[in-house]
């Protein structure tokens, strides 16, 4: 294949992640079913270590004693049984940090191994829902590619060596009052860590703290959106459903409003986003025009008058008619002036305090930005640089030339979960503990604080940031648990500390924190002129955004996220330069061409993706790809967009030129065709209008030659509401985590062999210029007249008494006839031995309730049958029928918009049964009379009559 991008499946033996693909040559027929022996241990760890690790899975055999739960007392969310029963999972409340905000989690622990991550219903940022990043954090914990040892200039060292060096360093900092000492962190959500930083800065007054977070630029989204209260929402390129940190909560609130009276969403954006796809009216504008639009809208609301753009008065009227019940949101990547217009609009419309709160900033010192640090480093002022979590050697704007600057710093230390680009260039590297391995705390945007409690002892000799800071300060206690606990003890809190502490651990949130509304920030309405040299006015605009899944590349080593199809393009294992069909036509560019993007003197080669719904005359590229030290999974797929990023305009601007090369690129996409071909798999209705009868109605139950089989109760079914589904793919990755679904790699995706049990189809409806963007999650339909079953020669897929279409892996001989005969193509086949049975870490990760499939067998969505049987057992113990909502499949549990409802369709009281009565209810390909148990609710549009 003639592409400049190295294939993502690495060379043999390069990584345990991929061993099974490479080692197959050694495996006999079913040999790959057997676990790896100690000699297969993929890295330098000892046999003893291996045995320690395997202890976790040994616990499955009923030896509850040798689990790896931390020594300190941690408190389960669910009341713990008298004695831990092997095979009975426990749930622990904890929290993860992303972009400087906390997301409360509930983590399932099977015999001491965290095996699944869910949102914490009590936590304001998640409300029990989750996002792709929360789900995928599990794989990062067990990732064999993690940094597994402390390194000094490239060679293994010990913690004691480091402590020694730090004592020397402290002496030097002491005498120079910290002059030349710099801290570099990502955005931090942990109050305790902020306190530690504050202590460091007071101890060494001359020291400076810098913050760099390429995916979450400060300031964040104007927090505290109350989407459920907003009847009219205008998004100025604000993707609050996308990678934005507010995602699960935003989708949840928005869905609430949609279900109530739909409301209306206007989205004006340059690149198609998940938010844009939900819009009742979507407008694609290039960033320059977008700024004008924002200004125009603000003007029109201030003094209504004639506007060139017919949309502006219409939207303005809609907004003014909904004072206090409307909301204008500007994207976090938009220029200050757009932010200003949004702030002005919300204030003018009296939305502040109604649909939007200005939240107080986190207490503690403020951090400086990266450019100042880089300047100081270049000028040689920096003597010691301590980097926490950040990876500036890769994810810093090209003009800072950070790597050269790094050369000039005598003492450098990197603390991170991977041995990445920066680690390789620093004198010291300390492996960072995963949040499921270490104690910490985290503050949500609204001020709610949670304790991060570990579920497993560190798999490798790693340290948490707190522990490393304690070492820096030479403080005691040095142990993470003690540090966090003592920090909490010092905070004001009524009543006995112990009980409060236990309660906080149990609930996952500290009481009496959160939802503190601050006075309206002073809207800097002064117009900031766009920072653009006039020379560039004519040329194309470049738009730089974090990758929706890999963000700024910090998650590039996470194979689940690499293989998770990106919104709209369904692209995996790489990125592309997106541009609109019209612009491509004007420039004579074709989909898949490899072009040279020249931007302000810098050049990068990128494959072109022609994306309907993209604004004309601009090009969008995503960060986070093209890494060379990500690890064997993340290295070398895609191109590095940081090469074009500049510190003065990090999110792009004018001055882009495209030069086509002769090369062509083959994209590893999971959906090659995105027009509906008049088959309307996704039905769209208009609010108020009577529902149009489906083209082909399903035959009535009576019209059959066969006697109807009557399923009793329960008869499981699922209804997916396309009107609230935002297409975020959280379901896909939650399913992957719950059901031990393997990753197949770029080559196999190219061959059309991805394994996801629930996929999210994306369609473009209407015109190419202004298409409607549609999503549709497609799991197994569990048809009553399942076409797949009748053709299986060995009865490996049959129906059970609860109406499930079950797949019997160990009976399957792999004729693949069932897949051919499945009109929904939801079946997945193990063409090769995809499951890595060699890396012991991954063995620890797997869900013990779900069998790991071998090569040559078919698999598909089971409605999480393991959860159904768990519920059934509970119900039978209490001699009662299973309650509605008691069984929640992984996809439904993860869905931030609650778009997926599961239950007994024969129970008249159940929510599914009610939804199936809705006029919007329809079955996919009903005319085939497959009688699916998974059905859909049509998408609804609420257009503004003033806009044609």
């Amino acid at each position, binding site marked *: 294949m003639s592409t400049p991008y190295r294939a993502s499946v690495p060379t043999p033996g390069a990584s345990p992640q991929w061993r099974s693909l490479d080692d197959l040559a050694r495996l006999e027929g079913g040999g790959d079913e057997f676990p790896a022996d100690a000699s297969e241990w993929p890295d330098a760890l000892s046999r003893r270590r291996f045995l320690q690790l395997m202890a976790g899975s040994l616990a499955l055999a009923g030896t509850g004693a040798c689990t790896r739960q931390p020594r300190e007392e941690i408190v389960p969310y669910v009341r713990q049984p008298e004695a831990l029963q092997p095979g009975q999972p426990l749930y622990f409340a904890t929290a993860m940090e992303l972009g400087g905000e906390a997301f409360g989690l509930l983590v399932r622990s099977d015999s001491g191994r965290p095996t699944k991550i869910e949102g914490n219903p009590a936590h304001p940022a998640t409300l029990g829902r989750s996002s792709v990043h929360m789900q995928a954090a599990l794989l990062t914990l067990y990732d064999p590619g993690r940094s597994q040892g402390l390194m000094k200039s490239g060679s293994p060292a010990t913690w004691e060596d480091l402590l020694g060096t730090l004592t020397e360093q402290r002496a030097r900092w002491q005498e120079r009052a910290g002059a030349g000492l710099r801290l570099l962190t990502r955005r931090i959500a942990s109050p305790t860590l902020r306190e530690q930083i504050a202590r460091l800065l007071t101890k060494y007054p001359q020291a400076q703290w810098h913050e760099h977070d390429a995916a979450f630029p400060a300031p964040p989204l104007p927090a505290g959106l109350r989407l459920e209260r907003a009847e009219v929402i205008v998004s100025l390129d604000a993707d609050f459903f996308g990678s934005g940190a507010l995602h699960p909560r935003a989708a949840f609130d928005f869905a609430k409003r949609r279900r109530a009276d739909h409301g209306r969403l206007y989205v004006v954006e340059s690149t198609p986003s998940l938010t844009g796809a939900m819009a009742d009216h979507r407008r694609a504008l290039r960033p320059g025009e977008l700024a004008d639009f924002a200004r125009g809208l603000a003007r029109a609301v201030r003094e209504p008058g004639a506007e060139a753009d017919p949309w502006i008065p219409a939207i303005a009227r809609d907004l003014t008619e909904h004072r206090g019940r409307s909301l204008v949101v500007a994207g976090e990547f938009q220029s200050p002036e757009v932010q200003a217009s949004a702030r002005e609009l919300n204030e003018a419309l009296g939305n502040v305090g109604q649909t939007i709160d200005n939240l107080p900033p986190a207490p503690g010192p403020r951090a400086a930005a990266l450019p100042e640090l880089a300047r100081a480093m270049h000028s040689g002022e920096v003597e010691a640089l301590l980097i926490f979590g950040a990876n500036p050697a890769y994810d810093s704007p090209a003009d800072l030339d950070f790597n050269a600057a790094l050369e000039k710093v005598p003492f450098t230390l990197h603390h991170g979960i991977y041995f990445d680009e920066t680690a390789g260039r620093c004198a010291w590297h300390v492996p960072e503990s995963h949040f499921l391995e270490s104690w910490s705390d985290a503050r949500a945007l609204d001020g709610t604080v949670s304790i991060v409690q570990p579920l497993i002892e560190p798999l490798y000799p790693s340290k948490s940031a707190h522990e490393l800071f304690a070492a820096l300060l030479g403080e005691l206690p040095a142990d993470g648990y003690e540090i966090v606990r003592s920090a909490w003890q010092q905070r004001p809190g009524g009543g006995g500390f112990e009980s409060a502490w236990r309660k906080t651990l149990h609930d996952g949130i500290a009481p009496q924190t959160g939802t503190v509304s601050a006075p309206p920030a002073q809207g800097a309405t002064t117009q900031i002129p766009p920072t653009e040299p006039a020379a560039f006015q004519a040329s194309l605009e470049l738009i730089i955004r974090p990758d929706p899944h890999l963000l700024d590349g910090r998650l590039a080593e996470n194979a689940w996220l690499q293989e998770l199809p990106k919104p709209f393009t369904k692209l995996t294992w790489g990125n592309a330069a997106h541009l609109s069909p019209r612009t491509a036509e004007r420039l004579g560019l074709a989909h898949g061409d490899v072009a040279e993007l020249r931007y302000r003197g810098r050049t990068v080669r990128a494959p072109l993706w022609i994306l309907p719904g993209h604004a004309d005359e601009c090009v969008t590229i995503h960060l986070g790809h093209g890494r060379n030290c990500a690890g064997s999974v993340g290295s070398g797929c895609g191109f590095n967009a940081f090469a074009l990023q500049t510190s003065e305009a990090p999110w792009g601007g004018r001055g882009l030129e495209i030069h086509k090369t002769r090369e062509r690129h083959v994209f590893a996409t999971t959906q090659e065709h995105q027009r509906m071909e008049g088959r309307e798999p996704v039905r769209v209705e208009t609010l108020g209008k009577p529902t149009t009868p489906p083209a082909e109605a399903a035959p009535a139950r009576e019209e059959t030659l066969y006697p109807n089989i009557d399923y009793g109760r329960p008869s499981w079914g699922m209804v997916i509401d396309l009107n609230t589904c935002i297409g975020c793919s959280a379901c896909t990755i939650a399913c992957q985590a719950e059901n031990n679904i393997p990753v197949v790699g770029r080559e196999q995706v190219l061959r059309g062999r991805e394994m996801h049990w629930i996929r999210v189809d994306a369609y473009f409806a209407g015109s190419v210029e202004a298409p409607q963007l549609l999503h549709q999650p497609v799991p197994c339909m569990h*048809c009553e007249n399942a076409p797949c079953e009748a053709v299986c020669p060995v009865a490996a897929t*049959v*129906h*059970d*008494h609860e109406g499930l279409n079950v797949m019997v892996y160990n009976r399957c001989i792999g004729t693949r006839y069932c897949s051919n005969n499945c009109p929904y193509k939801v079946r997945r086949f193990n063409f090769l031995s995809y499951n890595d049975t060699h890396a012991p870490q991954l063995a620890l990760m797997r869900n013990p309730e779900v069998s790991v499939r071998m090569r040559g067998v078919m698999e598909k969505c089971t409605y999480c049958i393991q959860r159904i049987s768990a519920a059934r057992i509970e119900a039978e113990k209490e001699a009662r029928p299973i309650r509605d909502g008691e069984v929640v499949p992984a996809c439904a549990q993860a869905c931030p918009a609650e778009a997926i409802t599961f239950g007994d369709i024969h129970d008249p009281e159940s929510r599914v049964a009610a939804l199936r009565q809705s006029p919007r209810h329809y079955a996919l390909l009903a005319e085939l009379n497959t009688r699916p148990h998974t059905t859909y609710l049509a998408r609804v549009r609420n257009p503004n009559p003033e806009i044609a």
Partner: protein
Amino acid sequence: MKGRALYGLVAEFLEPERLLAAAHAARQAGYKCTDAYAPYPVEGLADALGMRFTGVPLTTLLFGIGGGTTGYAMQLYSAAVDYPLNVGGRPLNSWPAFVPIIFELTVLAAAFGAALSMFAFNGLPRPHHPIFETPFFRERNASRFYLCIEARDRKFREEKTRAFLEEQAPEHVWEVREE
């Protein structure tokens, strides 16, 4: 030659018509234990020797019926009785889907019936047979025609039978003895 029991007398012809005539004559003369040998199936030769039934068609029919019934019984028992499964909402005894296998098993069994009965009734395989003792039989049986009157025939008298065969104007009359 001496000391070995006489198997029979064999007349060798060059033309099928001669053999056919001789066979008829032998029958007339009342010989029962006779057999003829020809390089290819000669029309009516077996009848001339007084052979009525082959038994092959009946066996074939029985085998065929047996195969068919087994086929249906097997499918009905396994799908509806022994291990009933709900397969795509189809009835347990979906007989139309069972027809192809019933048919195949019928044909298979019948074919075995035909082949096996043919060999069985012909007494094959039989590695050796006295007729092979006839001089030059190996070289000539693919081109010449033989009539054999066996010694065990009640009317067999060596001289008289030889004389009878000589009357049929054969190329030779051979005396064939058991091994």
